[in-house]
Structures are given as structure tokens and as C-alpha cells.
């Protein structure tokens, strides 16, 4: 299915430039797997990056640089520590998933935490981000019709729908759609009525929970 909601140009540019945070980049990578037009655009921006790099005045290298490089390529490949592929298979589905979910390539091989209670009808699982201790990425699932605790943001939240749909003030985000909420946004998210919903979300900055449930949940999802 072709996505209807796409990340903004500034986000695609930051991704191509390598300046988007690790968490949002992962969410975007999931979106790109299912979105040919964003993929083409990121590809074009990478062409732009290469062209700009090409146009930079070349830096001078140390006199031994070439000799070092020619020696380095003769050395055997280091044996990788642990086979990532096996890790991928073992960790691919350590937790239950709603029926019909195909785990995106970008998530294969990542450790996923067990499902925890988030709110009535809602559960979440932490997506491990090795090397990025401050990245906060989570899977969230909710049954048909579930209301998420109303919340706002200081910073941004990047969400990609993997299954089902969520509605936010009359806008429907279906599988393959990505949406970004910033500090100006106050969410009133509701899972679509036709079935369970699964999303991946990355949070940058702090989330501001409103209401009683929000205040209960706040300590669970982190600072």
C-alpha cells in the first residue's frame, strides 16, 4: 500500500546528511522500506551530498597516506565478533506481535523488550539502540478503538504506523504512514476501529503527559 503521509523535506535532508538523531533515523528507515517516493528523494539528496563533497577543495594528505592505504587493503578482513545474521534470527520475534505483522528489515536483529502496560488497551516495548543510550525508540500496540493518553511534546516524536491505523483530530494515519509531532502539537490519538494497531515511535526531548493517565504513564516511558 502506498503511504499517504510522509516525513517533511527537512527530515529527509537531515537523514541524507547524517544529522538526524539515531532514533528518528530508525523510524524513517522503516518508512523508507515501504515508500518508493521518499526513497527516491533521499537517494537524490545523497547525490547532492556526493556532489557537494566532490566540489570541496581537497584536503592535503600526509605523505604516507597512500602507502598506508595500500598496505591496509592487503591485510585480511577482521573476523566479525558474533554473526549479526544469527542474532537477527534469534531476536527477530522474541515478543508476540499482532497477527499479520512483518517485522521491517530495519528492526531485524534488534533486541526488543517485552511488552509492558502503557495505558488501558495499550502496551509498549523498548527497541534496543546499542551505542545510543539516549535514543528512545518504542513499539506501541493498541486494540481497536483505544484512546491514547493525551500528550504534548517538548522536542519531537516520530511515528510510523506498521499495522492498522491511528486517528488524530480527524486525520487518519494508516500502515506505511509516518507523522511527526513537535512541541506545538497536542495529540489526541485514537486507534482505528477496524483492528489492532502497531506503531514504532522515536521520542526526542521530553514528552509532556496530560491528564491523570498521562501522569501515571510518564514515569514508565522515561524522563
Amino acid at each position, binding site marked *: 500500500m502506498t503511504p499517504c503521509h510522509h516525513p517533511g523535506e*527537512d527530515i529527509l535532508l537531515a537523514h541524507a546528511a547524517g544529522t538526524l538523531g539515531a532514533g528518528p533515523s530508525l523510524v524513517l528507515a522503516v518508512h523508507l522500506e515501504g515508500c518508493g517516493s521518499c526513497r527516491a528523494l533521499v537517494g537524490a539528496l*545523497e547525490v547532492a551530498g556526493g556532489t557537494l563533497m566532490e566540489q570541496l577543495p581537497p584536503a592535503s594528505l600526509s605523505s604516507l597516506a597512500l602507502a598506508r592505504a595500500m598496505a591496509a587493503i592487503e591485510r585480511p578482513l577482521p573476523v566479525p565478533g558474533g554473526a549479526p545474521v544469527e542474532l537477527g534470527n534469534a531476536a527477530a520475534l522474541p515478543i508476540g506481535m499482532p497477527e499479520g505483522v512483518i517485522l521491517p528489515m530495519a528492526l531485524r536483529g534488534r533486541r526488543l523488550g517485552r511488552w509492558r502496560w502503557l495505558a488501558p488497551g495499550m502496551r509498549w516495548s523498548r527497541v534496543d539502540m546499542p551505542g545510543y543510550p539516549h535514543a528512545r525508540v518504542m513499539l506501541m500496540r493498541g486494540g481497536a478503538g483505544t484512546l491514547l493518553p493525551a500528550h504534548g511534546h517538548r522536542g519531537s516524536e516520530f511515528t510510523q504506523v506498521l499495522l492498522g491505523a491511528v486517528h488524530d483530530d480527524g486525520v487518519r494515519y494508516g500502515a506505511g504512514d509516518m507523522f511527526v509531532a513537535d512541541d506545538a502539537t497536542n495529540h489526541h490519538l485514537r486507534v482505528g476501529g477496524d483492528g489492532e494497531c502497531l506503531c514504532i515511535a522515536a521520542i526526542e526531548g521530553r514528552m509532556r503527559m496530560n491528564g491523570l493517565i498521562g501522569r501515571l504513564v510518564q514515569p514508565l516511558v522515561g524522563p
Partner: protein
Amino acid sequence: MSVPDGPPAPAPRAVSPDAWSTALLAIARTRDRGAFEALFQHFAPRVKSYMMRGGMAAAVAEEIAQEAMLSVWRKAELFDATRASATTWIFAIARNLRIDAARRDIRADALLDRDGASLAASLAAPDPAPLGDAVLLCAEREGAVRSALASLPEDQATIIRLSFFEDQPHAQIARELHIPLGTVKSRVRLAVVRLRKALEELL
């Protein structure tokens, strides 16, 4: 195999797979050391320059450039000339190394992961023998992007350049250029829309 003996013609280039892509394919096929040397002489100083633009010290930038070129040698088989030119592919490798250098927690397998995930590198296994037409289409696509980039108004081009090199979020660019954040974002949008149009006109 012919080793390129000079830099390719400056952009916009003729629509043909460039000499650097040919050199990269020669490494993939026959571990051609002459081709690697030519690639190193051309790209290593530019990768170093790219790293230094992001604020990296010269010595560190040179280390990363070495690392990038070693990756080029080791991953040449992953290069797919129907998806990207050598310049785009090497830029993606350098960019990923810059991201990893920024967090200074380099693990060899993490680097492999990132490059494996890179779009320019390839989303799927490359064809063993890329079709000539597909390579030409790729060159044409990249040529269109380069022309669009070259014809951007200066204010938009500046924002794009800063976005790639200065390693700063747009809020910082806005402060530096003394323009509102909204203006940065709208210039980004205008510039990216132009690049998108250039791509669409090819379809």
C-alpha cells in the same frame, strides 16, 4: 581494465557511467589495486575535507578518510552502478563513518550494519552484471539532480550546503545566518522540491 587517469569532467556530466564507477567495479571484479589507488588519490582528500568541514581535527579526519577508503575496498562488491554513482556511494560511506565517529563507539559490526542499511549502497543485493541501460538511467538520474542542484538560487544552495557540512540542526543554521527558523525550513523545502521535480521530469 582502464584506470582513470584524471578527474571526471565537472558537473553537469555527460550521461554515462563515470570513470570512478568503472574503477569501483574493477575492484569488485578483480581486486584491481591500480583502480583503488586512483580512487584513493581522488576521494581520500575530499572525504578528509568533508570531515574537516564538520569540525573534525585534521588528523582525525585523515583517519576517517583512511577508514572510508578501506571500506570502499572491502565493500566494493556491494556497489551497484544501477543505483548510484561511485561519488554518491562513497559519500554515503563517509557520512555513515562521520555519524559513527560522532558517537565514538565504533564497533566493526555496527559499521557494517549502517552501510548495509544505506540506500545509496543498496537496498538489495546488486545484480552480478548490471544492465548497461540501468547504469545509464542511473547516470541520467544523477545528472538531473546535479543540474538542479547547480541551478538552485544561492540562498537555497547555502542552506543545503550547510545542512550537509556543518553538522548542525536547522535551528543553529538559522541563528548563524540571522534568519528565522521558518525561513530555513521553507528554503529547505523549496530546494528539495526542485530536486524532486528534476527527478519526476525524467519519468
